[in-house]
């Protein structure tokens, strides 16, 4: 188990990352702030703690893998990768603008560190399973994390993949559900209720761990706990807040896929800054 990073440092980092996510989306003039802000601590827990990775060698064959299945959350992934040194931070401001490596929804290896393409929901977990099956054949031991949205798991393919991971006892696979409560047209419970999440995944043969996805101590614990499970796949159900950190975006479906205007960006950055203390 790697040494635990200082939580206060990580919390400050979360502020910096949220601010840069919003700057990039504002500059792009489009994008998905709500679902990017909800997953920040989950990514910090991976990229500053749980993942075995090397930003200088993004295709290191022994690395652990993070697959972003909720592709619209890519501003958060790009920002985290830039902060980790996979590519220059300045490039974040090219988000979504031609000719950029930072596509509106991710393309594989673009920029380095992006493991899979995503944007048509529900596909990441199947790929995670395939990777785990290949690793088993090659006697390679590593962790494969796959982050999905709560709306995303309405996709049938997710449950096909959940059954495959169970059937093949893929304990290298750790799914993370960013349960931020909202999807494009409203609360998940109104569009199509997916609860009870832990019971559902357990019924599919998974080890389910439910946490507050903004509490970094809980996030790090969850990654440790999941990694210790043998013989079955694990899912971390992270209860989060869509638009986390910006009062007017929090739990407001209007901020699913809209960029902040300059005055909104200024307010958002200020609010985030105030929370830093």
């Amino acid at each position, binding site marked *: 188990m790697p040494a635990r990073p200082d939580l206060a440092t990580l919390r400050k980092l979360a502020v910096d990352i949220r601010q840069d996510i919003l700057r990039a989306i504002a500059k792009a003039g489009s994008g998905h702030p709500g679902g990017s802000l909800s997953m920040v601590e989950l990514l910090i827990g991976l990229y500053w703690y749980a993942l075995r990775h090397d930003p200088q060698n993004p295709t290191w064959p022994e690395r652990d893998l993070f697959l972003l299945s909720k592709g619209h959350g890519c501003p958060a992934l790009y920002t985290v990768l830039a902060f980790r040194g996979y590519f220059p931070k300045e490039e974040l401001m090219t988000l979504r603008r031609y000719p950029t490596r930072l596509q509106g929804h991710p*393309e*594989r290896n673009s920029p380095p560190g992006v*493991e*899979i*393409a*995503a*944007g*048509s929901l*529900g*596909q990441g*977990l*199947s*790929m*995670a*399973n*395939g*990777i*785990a*099956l*290949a*690793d088993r*054949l*090659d006697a390679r031991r590593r962790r494969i994390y796959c982050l999905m949205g709560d709306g995303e798991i309405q996709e*049938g*393919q997710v449950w*096909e*993949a959940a*059954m*495959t991971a169970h*059937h*093949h006892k893929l304990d290298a696979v750790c799914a993370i559900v960013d349960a931020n409560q909202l999807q494009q047209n409203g609360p998940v419970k109104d569009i199509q209720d997916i609860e009870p999440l832990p019971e559902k995944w357990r019924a599919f043969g998974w080890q389910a761990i439910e946490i507050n996805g903004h509490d970094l101590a809980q996030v790090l614990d969850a990654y440790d706990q999941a990694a210790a499970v043998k013989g079955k796949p694990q899912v971390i159900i992270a209860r989060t807040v869509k638009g986390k950190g910006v009062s007017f975006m929090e739990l407001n479906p209007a901020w699913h896929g809209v960029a902040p205007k300059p005055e909104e960006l200024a307010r958002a950055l200020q609010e985030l800054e105030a929370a830093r203390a």
Partner: protein
Amino acid sequence: MADKPTRDGFGEGLLELGRTTPNVVALSGDLEDSARAIWFKKEFPARFFSVGIAEQDMIGTAAGLALMGKIPFACSFSQFVTGKALEQMRLAVCYQRLNVKIAGSHGGLSVGADGATAESLEEFSSLRALPHMTVIVPCDALEARKATIAAAAYPGPVFLRLGRAPAPLITKPEDPFTIGRANVLRGGDDVTLVACGVMVEHALRAADLLSKDGITARVINLHTIKPIDRAILLAAARDTGAIVTAEEHSVVGGLGSAVAEVLVQEHPVPMRFVGVQDRFGTSGDPAELLKAFHLMPEDLVAAAKEVLRLKQSALGSRL
């Protein structure tokens, strides 16, 4: 030699790959018996993955295996894998340019009695529209075996369309097979018949019938619909000036359309498309269905005579 379905050629090729190429793995959703991947499964159980009746997950899982350097062959009925998992083929396989091979068995009308819901008649159209996808339709079991082995060595996504019904062997073991390079099976200067799959044999029989009327027909086995062999098609258009295409598939967007896309821009000549006329299949014996859907040698002959008439009247108007 006895008739044999192309799916058997695939199964033999996959088994051979199992023995020669350790990175080859296979997946199926409870159709490994039908798609003949079961021979591979029996000999290499650790390299075969059962994913349940779930084509979308199968293609996604295959993509994951390919990300790690495996060469996965995902096997199912052609209709189910190309219909249900088209989005997965687009994003996970083609957009990511992964080395995934998809074997669609029971293609076209060959599933016969099972009826329209399993009869794939639109997949050439949908798959060849995907960037980076290669679309191969072997004409007999020998060619299917070669195509399977060639697909494993060919980087990127490959789709193999296979038939269920036994079909005559018309190629020989020593005949060359190169992905993207069509084969001229018979020379001729009056008209060209371009076909794939079981229709190649019908094209050869049509050429025999035409020869009785003193018409020499060139027969091209266009086993690879994409990437298409432009050179061989342009030469045929220049030399014969009249083209008939034939496919066990809809005339909307299939082999005929692919040929027309080349010729209409570079060397337009009179053309006719023999194929399924924008309709669904139906239950029946495959041989009976080929008749009912006007996919017989006689139908190619009629089409050939039409394009010949058009060619001659065009020549006449120029005189």
